[in-house]
Every structure is written in C-alpha cells, then in structure tokens.
C-alpha cells in the first residue's frame, strides 16, 4: 500500500544524504571525541563541523551550540538551568499556556521547587500578545520562555517582539524552536533570542538528538553534570551518529529552505481550504497566515480524532490528532483548550503535518478518502443526529 506520511511532527524520514553522512560513523569512524589520539580527532572534527552547520542555520557561533539528546532535554535544561543560575536574582518565570509538554512539565517541576510562574493566555488563533509579556514582568523575573511555533496548531508567535521586550528588561529570553528550526528561517539575532531549543528530526535528521543555543554571556547551570564534554556544560559521551546526522540535515535545511517553503505552502493551503469545503462543520485551527508551512490543523465535529486517524491509517495515510484518546495522558490538548476551543470540539482534532515527501496527489488522496470516513463515524455518533445542522 502507498504510504502517505502527513505526520511529520512525529516523524520525518531521515534524508538519504543524511543517512549516508552517518553511516561511516556506524562503521569505521568509531572514535570518542574525548580521546587524545587520532581516533578521537576525526570524530572531533566531524562534531565541530556539525556544530558549525547548526550554528550557521540559526546565525549563531559554534561555541554557542551545545548538543543534547533532543528538544525535550534542551527545554528542560534551559528552564531548570536558567532558573537555578538566576536563583539569587529571583524566582519568577513567564511562559505561555500553549507550550510543549517538555516546557509545561519542566515548569511544573520548578513550581514544586518554589518557582513562581505566569502563564500567558493566547487569543483564538493561539497567539501570545507581547504586551501581556511586558505586563507580566516583575523585579523577580529571571526568564521568559515562549515557544516559536506550536506544531499542533501551526501558529508562529511574535517572538522577535517578545525577545525585544525581554532584552529591554535585561531578562534572558528562551524559545522552544523545535518546530521551526530548519523549517522556517530562524535567526537568533534578529529574533532577539538568548536561548533556543532545537531538535534534528523536524528537519529530517535522526530522532533523539538536538541542541541548546546559549547566547554568549548567558549564565546557565548544567542539567547533566560530569565530564567536560561540550565545554563542561553538558556531560556525557556524545551521540556522535546523531550529531553528525543533525549537522548534515542542518546544512541541507539551509540550502533547501526556500524550495521547501515553496513546495509546502501550496499543499498546506489547499488542504486547509478544501477539507472544510468537502466536509461540513470542519473548522481550521490556528493562525490563518502566521503559520508553519506544512501545518494543517482542523477540528471535525461529532467525531473523535483517534477513530478517524485509524481509518486513515488503514488507507495508508498517517496523521496525528490532539484528541484525548490519542494523547497518552488521555487529556485533550491543553493548547486547543487555551485557544478557547471547547473540549468536545477538540476531540475531533486532525493534524496533518506535511513534509518534503508529500505531493499534490497525496492531498488529492486525503480529500478523496477523508469525507466517507467522517461520514461513517458521524453515522455512528450519538452526537451527530441530535445537534448537527443537517441530519
């Protein structure tokens, strides 16, 4: 069966060029960058090269990039490390109400340790108002963390403005840019970012590797102590394979970014427009224009997301959903709730995240296969007949 992956938020295929760059490190190049001898050197060089490419992708310097085991570790580190390093200055942290779990739960852990948190609301498009950031600042504020974009709703936050406010107030600004780095242009300087979390998979690198950008001059405590890998900031023998893959993927992302945007946006826009045309009572989620290039997020009334997802899966179409059944915590997406979408409607969430491997025909297939699935499930739904506009 033809497989149509429209779940790039969960898994983007590793590009063949990336795999090819990694394979030597699976085989003959097995050194440890900490070694003094030549086996270590060739690996150190490869890591340096990867670091340069990641730095170039976000307009940072290589010394400002520290490798991590992914976006989650980078987010945990940024929050816990900055709050700890800033303990003497204060204990207040500003964030949004639509952050990824790796921010949300790390912050909960900080709250248990006595930190104070302001969670900013978002509007119906899922956007944070920079003015709210300004108003939330207190003399105790030691960190502002607002994500660049949330893949569940696609909305891209006004982080340049938020970063500017943070800078005016001399507060470090962190952004979770896992969904954007390598996908849309990200420049830590023009966006006024002090710390930035990224992961390799969203730009077609391997899973389980990422980085934290730490602007020169920003004080942060380690999350993982030990040897002095990564300049003493992140201990542990490095995931060399992953880092090499991430470096190559970053190089390609920089090279192909414009072409990818030109490819993705029309597919996205067609789906966003055509699904609601093909199926009644389907509503788009997120910002209409300030939006990730491959993100199509909608809610389908009267039907639950997982059941649609499973029927699509049988047809070879792989997607995600923010419904409670899908989330492993069995709670409906806090992101959609924060946007004012009621929990019942959010259950009908469908999330298509497109990537380089999707085509116009894939969009055709979705538009052909989705409507009868929705109809079948609506016919089975106790909510449909009662409240639907048409029976």
């Amino acid at each position, binding site marked *: 069966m033809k497989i149509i992956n429209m779940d790039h938020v969960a898994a983007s295929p590793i590009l063949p060029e990336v795999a090819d760059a990694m394979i030597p490190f699976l085989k003959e190049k097995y050194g440890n960058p900490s070694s003094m001898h030549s086996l270590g050197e060739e690996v150190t060089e490869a890591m340096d090269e990867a670091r340069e490419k990641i730095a170039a992708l976000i307009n940072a310097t290589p010394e400002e990039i520290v490798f991590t085991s992914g976006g989650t570790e980078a987010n945990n580190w940024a929050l816990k490390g900055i709050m700890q390093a800033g303990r003497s200055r204060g204990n207040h942290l500003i964030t949004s109400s639509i952050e990824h779990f790796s921010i949300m739960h790390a912050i909960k852990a900080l709250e248990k340790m006595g930190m104070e948190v302001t969670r900013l609301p978002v509007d119906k498009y899922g956007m944070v108002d920079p003015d709210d950031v300004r108003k939330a600042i207190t003399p105790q504020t030691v960190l502002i963390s607002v994500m660049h974009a949330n893949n569940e709703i696609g909305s891209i936050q006004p982080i340049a403005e938020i970063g500017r406010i943070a800078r005016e107030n001399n507060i470090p600004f962190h952004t979770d840019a896992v969904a954007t780095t390598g996908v849309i242009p990200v420049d830590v300087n023009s966006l006024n970012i002090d710390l930035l979390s990224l992961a390799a998979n969203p730009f077609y690198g391997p899973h389980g590797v990422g980085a934290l950008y730490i602007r020169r001059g920003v004080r942060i405590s380690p999350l993982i102590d030990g040897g002095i890998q990564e300049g003493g900031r992140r201990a542990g023998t490095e995931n060399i394979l992953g880092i090499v893959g991430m470096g190559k993927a970053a190089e390609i992302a920089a090279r192909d970014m414009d072409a990818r945007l030109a490819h993705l946006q029309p597919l996205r826009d067609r789906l966003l427009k055509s699904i609601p045309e093909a199926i009644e009572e389907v509503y788009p989620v997120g910002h209409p224009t300030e939006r990730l290039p491959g993100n199509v997020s909608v809610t389908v009334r009267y039907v639950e997301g997982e059941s649609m997802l499973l029927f699509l899966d049988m047809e070879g179409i792989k997607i995600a959903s923010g419904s*409670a059944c899908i989330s492993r915590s069995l*709670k409906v997406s806090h992101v959609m709730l924060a946007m004012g979408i009621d929990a019942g*409607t959010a259950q009908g969430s469908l999330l298509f995240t497109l990537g380089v491997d999707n085509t116009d025909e894939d969009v055709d297939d979705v538009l052909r296969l989705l409507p009868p699935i929705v109809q079948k499930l609506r016919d*089975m739904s106790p909510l449909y007949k009662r409240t639907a506009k048409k029976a």
Partner: protein
Amino acid sequence: MYSEVVMDHFKNPRNVGEIDGADGVGEVGNPACGDIMAFYIKVKDNVLEDVKFKTFGCGAAIAVSSMVSEMAIGKTLDEAMKITNKSVIDALNGLPKKKHHCSNLGADALHRAIEDYRAKQRGNHYEKPADGPEVCSCPVCDVNDPEEAPYCKAACERPQK
C-alpha cells in the same frame, strides 16, 4: 496497538444504531471526555432481544461498544448485568492498558440501559448518575502527574509510583 479482534470490531462494528421505541436507553460519558456511548435495548421475557449502540470515541470505545452489544444480545438482564470490564477486555483479546477506561464505559452504558428499563418497569424514572470529570480522564498508569488524574489513582497505584 490493538488486537485483531478489536480492529475487526472497530472496522465492522456490530449492532450500530438506535432502536425506535427502545425499552431502555443508557448513556455514559460526555464529549469533553472523548467517549460517549449510548445503548438501546429491547427486552422480551427478561432477555435482551436486541441491543444497539451509538458511540463517539476512540477505536477502543467503538470496539468495546460493538463487543458489549454482541455479548449482551440473548442474555437475561441479570446475566447482562454481570458483563464486566474484564470480560469485555478478555473477549476483545485484550486492550492496551491505557484504554481500559473505554471498556468500563461500554459495560456501564449497557447497565444503565438495563437500569432504565427496570426503573420504567417499576414505574420510576431512572436517575442517570452524574458523570463528573473523574469519569473522564483515566490516565495511563505511570503518567508523570498522577495528581491530575484522580480516577485511576487506585487502579494505577503500583508500588513504584
């Protein structure tokens, strides 16, 4: 993730629909929870002559509803009241642990339909229990903030958490 039996019932659910003039109707869940099941029963000589359902919910919820309906048809009311969580899961060849709440709902909805029938027989109106938020969120065991999921606390309380 799901067993073949579950997938079969999900793809081809048995007894979908409503029964006009049902002898009893039972419903459980609410849309905010992600699962609503409505069961309709037809009773003759204390036996479930027909059972139909409508379900809004995940794959497991649909499969559970379908399985409950199959298990119930032909049973006496007392037998049907003994259909449990566990027996439905067993009949489905297992469910992922995190989906166990959905199967609870299936038996509950059927039992409510029977209660409804019995109340009517007695000339009473059956008082549907209020579904608080606890019915809603049954978390995975081991989820990292169990305090938010009171309902499964007991079920999930394993020594290591």
